[in-house]
């Protein structure tokens, strides 16, 4: 396997976005925080299987009380990416991330989610006051020298302009703005916000005949570990039928890709990593 996804804080998040496809929030602990020990055990297991990168997600990873220890353990083994809403990044944390970005054995990617280049556009999805807090997190990361990425959801009712985000990032002191577009997955809270998947929105068998299917899909090259077990990807962790096992060793067989979300992955050539 190439990629280990760790649901470090499970479904716990400091906010509750309207488009969150795994319906995270301050009290949502369907998937609980992973202990430092559980994270390290999964990392060692994954590295023994040839893993070349580790990603932290949630929920909001920076809610984890031992996040820097877990991060150091990961960076000693492989490059690491963190998916965050950026709101909890204060001066101290930004400094700590900046040091690791420069000096850790391997690369550290910090990817901050932002769904609008203005408070109005962003907060309508992510909640009141979120834009302000995220913007300050981005400013601190940039000042600390972290070459951050901003992840932007492509919402049906708002096609955001790349140049708007690039301009905003430059204003916040980001010298080389990097953006990544995320398609919507019509699950979780997003299913109620716009619409759910229709049953017919699944991949046709002939799509998957393409020989690069395995490397094009996250589930072809990675696994996601949560407190509840091992899943093919961070998208399907709330789908019990798609749980692959309780440990990586039980979860290495081919993952079925017959969920409607798989069609989104396929059509968009989407990976949660960068």
């Amino acid at each position, binding site marked *: 396997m190439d990629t280990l996804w760790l649901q470090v804080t499970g479904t716990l998040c400091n906010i509750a976005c309207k488009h969150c496809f795994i319906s995270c929030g301050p009290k949502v602990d369907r998937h609980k925080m992973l202990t430092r020990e559980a994270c390290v055990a999964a990392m060692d297991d994954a*590295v*023994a299987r*040839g*893993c*070349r*990168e580790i990603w932290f997600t949630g929920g909001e990873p920076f809610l984890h009380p031992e996040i820097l220890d877990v991060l150091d353990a990961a960076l000693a*083994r*492989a*490059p690491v990416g963190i998916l965050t809403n950026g709101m909890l990044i204060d001066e101290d944390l930004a400094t700590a991330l900046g040091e690791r*970005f*420069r000096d850790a*054995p*391997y*690369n*550290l*990617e*910090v990817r901050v989610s932002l769904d609008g280049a203005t408070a109005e556009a962003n907060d309508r999805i992510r909640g009141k006051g979120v834009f302000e807090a995220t913007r300050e997190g981005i400013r601190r990361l940039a000042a600390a*020298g*972290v*070459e*951050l*990425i901003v992840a932007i959801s492509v919402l049906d009712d708002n096609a955001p302009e*790349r140049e708007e985000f690039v301009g905003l990032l430059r204003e916040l002191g980001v010298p*080389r703005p*990097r*953006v*990544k*577009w995320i398609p919507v997955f019509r699950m979780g809270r997003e299913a109620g916000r716009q619409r759910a998947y229709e049953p017919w929105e699944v991949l046709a068998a002939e799509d998957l005949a393409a020989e690069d299917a395995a*490397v094009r899909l996250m589930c072809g090259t990675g696994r996601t570990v949560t407190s509840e077990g091992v899943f093919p990807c961070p998208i399907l962790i709330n789908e019990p039928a798609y749980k692959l096992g309780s440990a990586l060793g039980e979860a290495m067989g081919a993952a079925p890709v017959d969920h409607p979300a798989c069609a989104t992955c396929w059509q968009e*050539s989407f990976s949660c990593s960068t």
Partner: protein
Amino acid sequence: MLDLGSFDKVALFGGVYNNWLALEATVADARRRGAQAVVFLGDAGGFGPHPNRSVEGLRSLPIHAIQGNYDDSVGQGLEDCQCGYTDPRDNHFAQISYDYTLANTSAEHREWLRGLPVRGELKVGGKRVRLCHGSPRRVNEFLWESTTPAGFIDHLCREEDVDLIACTHTGIHWERRLADGRGVVNVGAIGRPPNDGKRTVWYSLLEAGPNGIENRFVAVDYDWERLAREMTGEGLPPEFVETIRTGWWTTCLEILPGRERARGHH
């Protein structure tokens, strides 16, 4: 798989990107330094002017060649270079160089590119070296310094049953060795500078040493002013010419990991 045999000293380079002047300079330098074999790890086209001149250079000299993603695309006349960019600006520029290269590579050269092997092997001082473009398992997998951890290198070397993996495709040279000497040498590219603000380009010399294979990266000066003039004359974008003149990458930046990106100017 291409098996080149055993040597004491070999030169490896990748990513010509149509920079036929750097190709001439690199091969001359490698011969002067006593390389017994000169190996090209793929990507003849892209970016620079007059694609036929580079392929002619590669074919007329005794250079062993491995196929890169660009060579596969041009050879087969595919629609794009298979670099997998998602950023619209990167795609825009990548398509310009690809369309130019495809339109200006002769049918005979395309056939040669199409027929190149995707993997090779040679020995240096008795140690086995895997030759590939991106990684031993995928022609367009990027092996960057900051994202290729030791555990993964160990895994790849075991899977391939080799001591060293020699690759290119990223355009930036680097090397990581495990405690026992096994490792990866990414030979970089001679077609454009490694985003370091200088105009020299780099290749790799592998030599048998007392402790196994020793790698040395060698800087090559070439007539970059002439290349820049020819690029302008061919109507290639000023952004590409700027890279040749300044040593900073201006396009196709999204593939860089954060740490490598932070070292550049754009």
